[in-house]
Structures are given as C-alpha cells and as structure tokens.
C-alpha cells in the first residue's frame, strides 16, 4: 500500500502516451457572413507526446505553432480532429468537465510583460488558479485494518476521487490512529490535521484541517515562489518591479500552482536576455525532473530546442513536416524543409564550409495554401517532370517565380474600379504581364518548348484568365508535389516521420538529393 503511494508522488511513469493529436485542424475566421475563406493555421496535424518528455515545436513565424499549442490547452477551438489527453478527447469537453481538466494542462506565455496583470501583486497572480479551482481539496488515504469511510470539510478520498492526490495519509491499527503523514506541497503539518475515529464497521475517519484555506493557499504561493527561485517576500511586489527573467519565473509559478501534468511553453525564453535564457531553461528542466512534467516546447530558436527537447516537430504552414528524436533530426535532417531550416543556424566557425539553403520568397498565405505539398512553392528539391530534369537552374527558378507571381495575382483582390477598367479594356495595375515576362525571362535563352508554354500562359493572363494561365504551366511544369499531399513516411528506426514525396521509392531521397541550385 505505502509503496504504491510513494511511487505516485515521486515520479510519473515515463513512456506512455499522455497527449495524442489526430488530424487536428484549427481555422480562424470561419463562417463569415459574406465569404468564408478561413486562415488554416493548423491544417491536419498528427503526433503524440509521451509522459515526462519534452516535445519541441519549431518553425518560421506564422507557421501555426503557437495556435497548435493554444489548441492543445483549449484556448482555441479545434475546427476538426481530436486531442486525446489520457485517452479523453478534450476538444469535446465543456463546462465543469473542461474546467476540471484545465488543472492538468497549463501554459507559460511568450511575453512576460503581457502575461502578468500589472495591477495585481505577484502573490495574487500566482494564487489566482488556486482560487479558481477552490484549491485545495485535501486527498485522504486511510491505511486501516478495518473498513473505513472518510468524512470532513474540503476533504476527499484520494483513491476514489479523480485528480486528488494523497495529501494526508492516516494509518489506523486496532481501532486507533497510529500515524498521520502529510505531503509537503499541501502546506500542512501534523498539527494542522485532527483525526477522529467514530463507530466501527465501517469506521468513520473524520479529518479536520485546522488551517484555513486562505492560509494554506498563501503558504502554497510562498512555497511556489521559492520553487521558481524567487523570495517569499516577493508576494506583495508588483510585476513591474521585476526584470523580464523574474517575471517569467512568476509566470512559471502560476502555471505550476495547480500541479499540472502537461505544460505548454510558448517561446518561454525568446523575450529574454540571452544571459537569462539559460537560467530559465535550467529552471524548467529542474522542475520537469522534480514534478515529472510533460512539456510542449514551442520555439524558433533551434539551438534552444536542441538543448532542451527530447523530440522535435518541424512545422510549416500548419503542417508537421518532420518529427523525430532531436539529435538524430538535427544531425541528419530528412525533410527538405528541415534541411533548409537547420542550414540557417549560424555556424560559430567562420572558416567552416557549409552549404546554406536560402529559401526563395515567403511562405504562401495560410488562407490559400498550395493544393499539393505545403512546401511546394519554395522547395529547392521539388520533383520535376522527367523531360525537364536537366533544365538549367536559372530557367527553372524563373518558371517557378512566374508561377508564384500568377498565384499571387489570382489571389489579389481587385477593387470595383479595377474590375470596371478591366471590362473597358483600360490599363490596370494587373495588366503589365509583358513587363513581368521580360523581367523574368529577358536574360534567359528559353528552349522553344518552354517559350511556347510561357507565351501561352501570358496570353491567358492578358485575357484576365489567371486560372487558365496557371493551368497551362501546371500541366507542363508541375509534378506530384503540386498535385498530391505527401503522406507521412517513417524514415528511421527510431520512428521519425517526414512529410515529403521524395521518400517514395521512385524518387531520390531528400538527403541524397543535390538541390538543382547546387549543381
């Protein structure tokens, strides 16, 4: 009996799945009155987080990583898909169930300036979650040689009530209380608990806590301040009296107040000085060891991710492009996007000779992501049709840019005046297709075949038929990357998955493939 209790409070069993995300989608701005073209911030994501591990989530700004984190703790409503937390789909929860579940998952926010209410003292800020959940419900475990029932104000049987830990352990032998133990986190000492036995078969164990809830909460806040490396006297200070690093510690203390299992860290150090970042990262690691926490660590600083995470998921345009063990992924990226992203890490050695993949342009709008692979518009390893395998790099880039320009043009909203001008055959800002052509293809010798298609597309554009133009180019220069979403391919023994068509047998693997621009 007592062994079991000990094990429970010391550490959680690692390895089993805590969070499982299946085909999760979060769209913004749906159901508009006139036209519904939502921002697809998270667009079909699958992964799982094991108990006690740290999963990193990296990607460019605006790739949807923060939205994903917010959806996991139900700050955003998922559009579809499920988030299984210990097997329960939390996207379906509401009311009291949702509120109860919220104790288990907390978030540390990116900006410590904005995440703490300046009008409240540090103590009040950390205490608030405790007040909201009417903490504590004191969990009692009775170790007795007879049948017992537990009774008392604000007291619950830790073995039958979910989410309540064994805070007070009462040992009953031969009709009298032989031992009472209390758990440190609950801010109770032996003197604060009065235990009384009444009747027999079943014996009623009456537990009375003499400290008031207020006192227990205040003591708990002081202890939390101590845990995160602040001083208990800071209770009555205001956030603006602290530095960024200290404020972030307060944010961490607030997240830990309810003893959650899962914490989403949304770029917890990116707003801090480099010197302070390490302290906070170490604190987070220590807390993870101490309380057996499971982290989702959102970041765009890759070196931080490499330092703290067990596994990493790389996101691009609402999709997870690659997910695997940190070291392995950093040492040998499989996905073209990961490859490009990692090559952007600055090398401390200036003489080191490294290839750097510079991505062209900007990510497409998440309102209108590409139909095929999300990365297709910028991918340096994009699959080409067979007949253009040996086309020179400049021409290929020019064609890709041309397609990109047409894509953007089609998306651009035309004002009423511009539509009227178009109808009247007047010049609009969209009508300079010849100029675009000259700029892109002016210095390049196009083969007859290519030129023919480019011209045909340009004619469509001149007729205000961008769609037609894009179709022409796609039929000629497009490939599987433009048409089909890639599946997740398992690419290593450790179960790393990557989201790229090049993992199919008929194509060269991305890590073996030399980008066209490098040839």
């Amino acid at each position: 009996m007592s062994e079991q209790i000990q094990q429970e409070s010391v550490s959680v069993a690692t390895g089993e799945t805590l969070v499982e995300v299946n085909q999760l989608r979060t769209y913004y701005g749906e159901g508009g009155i006139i036209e519904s073209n939502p921002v697809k911030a998270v667009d079909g994501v699958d992964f799982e987080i094991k108990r006690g591990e740290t999963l990193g989530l990296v990607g460019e700004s605006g790739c949807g990583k923060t939205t994903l984190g917010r959806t996991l703790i139900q700050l955003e409503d998922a559009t579809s898909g499920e988030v299984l937390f210990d097997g329960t789909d939390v996207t379906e929860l509401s009311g009291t169930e949702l509120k109860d579940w919220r104790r288990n998952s907390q978030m540390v926010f990116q900006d410590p300036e904005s995440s703490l209410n300046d009008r409240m003292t540090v103590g009040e800020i950390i205490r608030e979650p405790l007040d909201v959940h009417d903490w504590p419900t004191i969990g009692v475990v009775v170790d007795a040689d007879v049948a017992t029932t537990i009774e008392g104000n604000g007291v619950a049987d830790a073995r039958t009530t979910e989410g309540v830990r064994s805070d007070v352990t009462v040992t009953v032998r031969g009709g009298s209380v032989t031992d009472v133990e209390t758990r440190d986190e609950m801010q109770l000492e032996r003197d604060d608990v009065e235990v009384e036995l009444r009747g027999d078969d079943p014996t009623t164990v009456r537990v009375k806590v003499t400290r008031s809830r207020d006192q227990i909460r205040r003591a708990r806040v002081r202890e939390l301040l101590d845990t995160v490396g602040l001083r208990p006297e800071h209770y009555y200070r205001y956030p603006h009296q602290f530095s960024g690093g200290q404020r972030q510690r307060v944010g961490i203390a607030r997240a830990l107040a309810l003893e959650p299992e899962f914490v989403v860290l949304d770029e917890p150090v990116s707003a801090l000085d480099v010197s302070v970042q390490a302290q906070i990262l170490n604190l987070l690691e220590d807390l993870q060891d101490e309380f057996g926490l499971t982290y989702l660590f959102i970041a765009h600083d890759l070196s931080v991710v490499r330092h703290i995470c067990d596994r990493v998921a790389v996101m691009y345009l609402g999709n997870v492009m690659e997910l695997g063990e940190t070291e392995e992924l950093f040492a040998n990226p499989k996905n073209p996007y990961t490859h490009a992203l990692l090559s952007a890490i600055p090398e401390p050695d200036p003489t080191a000779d490294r290839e750097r993949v510079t991505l062209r342009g900007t990510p497409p709008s998440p309102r209108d992501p590409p139909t095929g692979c999300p990365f297709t518009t910028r991918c340096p390893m994009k699959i080409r049709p067979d007949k253009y395998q040996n086309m020179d790099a400049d021409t290929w880039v020019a064609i890709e840019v041309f397609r990109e320009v047409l894509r953007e043009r089609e998306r651009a909203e035309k004002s009423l005046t511009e539509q009227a001008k178009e109808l009247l055959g007047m010049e609009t800002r969209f009508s300079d297709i010849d100029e675009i052509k000259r700029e892109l293809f002016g210095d390049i010798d196009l083969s007859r075949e290519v030129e023919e298609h480019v011209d045909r597309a340009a004619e469509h554009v001149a007729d205000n038929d961008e769609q037609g133009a894009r179709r022409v180019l796609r039929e000629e220069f497009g490939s599987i990357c433009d048409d089909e979403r890639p599946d997740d391919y398992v690419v290593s023994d450790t179960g790393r998955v990557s989201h790229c068509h090049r993992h199919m047998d008929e194509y060269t693997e991305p890590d073996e493939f030399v980008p066209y621009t490098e040839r």
Partner: protein
Amino acid sequence: MPDVSSRPHREDVSIRQRIAENPGPALGWLAGALLLFALEAGAVVHFVTGLFGSPVELPTLLSRELIPNNGYQTPSGAWQETFLGLPAAYAWALRVVLVYAYSFVWMYWLWRGYLVFRENYRYADWTPRDDMIDRLRGHRWGQFGAIIVFAFVVMALFAPALGPTTVERTISNPYSHSIEYYNDQGQLENITVGSANLDSRSQGTPQQNVGPMQYDQFGRFHPFGTLPSGKDMFTFMASGARISLFIGLSAIIVSGLIAAAFALLTAYYKGLVDLGVVIVGDSIMSLPRLLFVILLTVVLSGTWIAEIYSGAVILALIFAGTGWPFLWRSVRGPAMQVSEQEWIDAAKSFGQKPRVTMRKHMAPYILGYLLVYASMSLGGIVIAVAGLSFLGLGINPPTPEWGRAVDIGQSYVTTASWHISFIPGVMIVLVVTAFNALGDGIRDAIDPQSETGEGEGNEAAAATGGGA
C-alpha cells in the same frame, strides 16, 4: 523552505483573535467613534423614524434649535432670540463652522481608525493599498478636488442645519411662518416670512438688492444675498446641492456602470455582441441629446416615477439612459486593448470565469479612463439639469436647484444683483472641477506604475484627446 513555513505566522490568526489579544487601541477608537455619533444620533433617529411616519425629535448638537440665528435686533443694537445674543451672522457662522468641524473630525477619526488597524491588527507590514494611499497623499491636485468635493457633500448632507433659514420657512411655505422685527417706529412687529421676502428682493437696483453677507431690513442675515423673489439664496443653494449631487452622481454612476459592463462584454466576447451594442449605442448617440431629453421629460411627466423626489429620479435615469453610449465609446477602445493581453488568455487557461476575468483583469484598466470621462461628464449633467430648469422642465419648482438660480439671475448679471447668477455659476464650476481633480487623483493612485506627479501623461492625454 524553512522560512516559508516558520509558523505560527501572524496571518494564521484571525482578525477577531488579533483584536482580542490587544483590545486597547480598538476600544479607544470605538469609544471616540461612538461619542462622535452620539452628537448627531438625534438626526439619524429623526431620519429613520421619518421613513416610517412622523419623525421623532431629539436634541442634536448641530441643529438650528440649539444654535438659533433667527432673531431680531432691538433699536439699541442688542440681539434677541439668537444664540447667546450674538448677531445673527455670527450665530450662523458658528453653526457652519461647527458642522464642518464635526465633519472633519469624523474624517480624521476614520483615518485614524485605518491607522490603528494598520499599526496594531494587520498581519502584513505592507500591502499595496499603502502605496495607493501614499500616492494620493502626494497628489496635490487630487487633494484639492477631495477637499472641495468633501465640502460639497457635507453641504448636501447637512443642508437643513447649514442654511440661515429652512426651505420650508422661506421657499415652500413662506406665508405660514412669521418673524419679529422692530419697525421704523421702534415697535416690535410680527410679519409673515412671505411679506418680509417682498421687501428683501434683489432686483438689480441698489435700492432693491440684498447682496452677499448682508442683513436685510428685518435683521435676517443672507450669506449669499437673496434671490429676485427675496428668498435667502444660501438656503436655496444648500438644499439645491442635495438635488444636484443626487442627479449628477446617480446619473453618472448608472451610466458608468452600463458603459463599463458593455465595454467589458463587447471587448471580451467581440463579434455579434459588439455589433449589437455598437448599433444600439450609435443609435442613441445619433439623437440630438438635449431635444431627446426634453421629449422624454415631457412624455414621462405624468407618470408616477416623475413624482419621486420632485422629478430628480426620472431625470437621473434619463441622463443615464442617454449618456452611457458616450462613456462606453470612450472606454471601448481601452477595453479592446486590454482584452488582447496575454493575461486574459492565462486566466482562461486555468478556467477563470468570464465574469471574474472581466472584473479582475480588465475592469481596473478601464477604470482610470472611466473616472476621467465620468468626472468630465458630471459637469455636463449638472449644467444640463440647469438648462432644463431654465426651460421650465426638469426639477419641479419650488424645489431648489442650482441651475435655476443661474437662470433666474441671468438678467441681473451686470447690475447690483450680480450675485444671483455668479455664486451658483462659480460653485458649479468649482464642484465640477473638483470632481475632475478627484478623479485624476484616484486614477493615479490606483495605478501602481504611476509615480505621483508624472503619471498624468498617457492616460489623461489619451482621455482628453477624444472627449474634451
């Protein structure tokens, strides 16, 4: 950890126990408070019993019966029937001084009560409220406002005791009361107040004028002079303070509450809720306000609610109902801004109720703006009520109202009877400014980031930018 749980901590003992352990200071303070209360207990008993029928009369320190100033002067110059035979002006002044002294002592005693609690019974050596008080202590402009507002509130509270005479005697029922005086022939004569008033009128000529701080020919002292009807203006003003304060404060409080509630709701929920309130608010704002108020006053004039407190309640409600969109518009922006802060998300993430989130995490940030706007609008309401009185609407005569005095005196501004418009006008300006100053002071005090003196920059500038 050891210093965390070093107990017994003081906070572990309840306030009742803390007082029981050391009852001295608390009992001392309580005795003083009871003594102060006893001096005026009669007035409270009078008021409470008055609610249930005929009021019970008890002697009170500050009553006009104890320190009478209504008397007459014998030809030899001696005063009869006044307090200790003092001249009427001194008797009146003594009463005024006593009333204000009494109020100040009460204020001081409450402050001392707080200090007693802070020094002897509070578990924490320091709490955030201490800083708020310190900031207010160093805020001269706010203190100026506080003093004037205090004087105004005392004037409204003690109106019956402060006036040289009463509303009943000189305004509402002058022909049922009489006074004695020595006439030109040197004989003691009895005359009704109404008839006496006819000879103490201020009509703009030096012959027909009783100015500030003057006696009329019946030996009555008029601190603010008389009205064109010959009635005492100080009595009129003191009583009018009550109604102005009532309308202004209740209208601004009601519309402030509506505005704050809507601002928080629209900022928190956004979307359709916001759109709905925007449409309603803009519709109300697009109406020409004064005309609409006049229309409502006329339409509702026959109903039962228009009778309560001479029409003050209905006026307060009308001003609240038409005024909230202006306040709401001015705090909607700040509310929207604060609703985007991450601490709102944080509150949501641990399951805080929307209501509490709005109150704890959003309301304090719009309160500063609201105080500034509300104190500015307060003047507008006082002035609008005066405007309505001018048109013969609003507060039913003869109930005194400051605005009516301004209007009555309008045609005498350039004459000997300048005081009729001037004094109420200056008082309106002073009171409105004081509420504004107090609003500034409170706003700076509740903002922990504002340092006294320099904190007036951002919010005040932002606030005056839109509404002034």
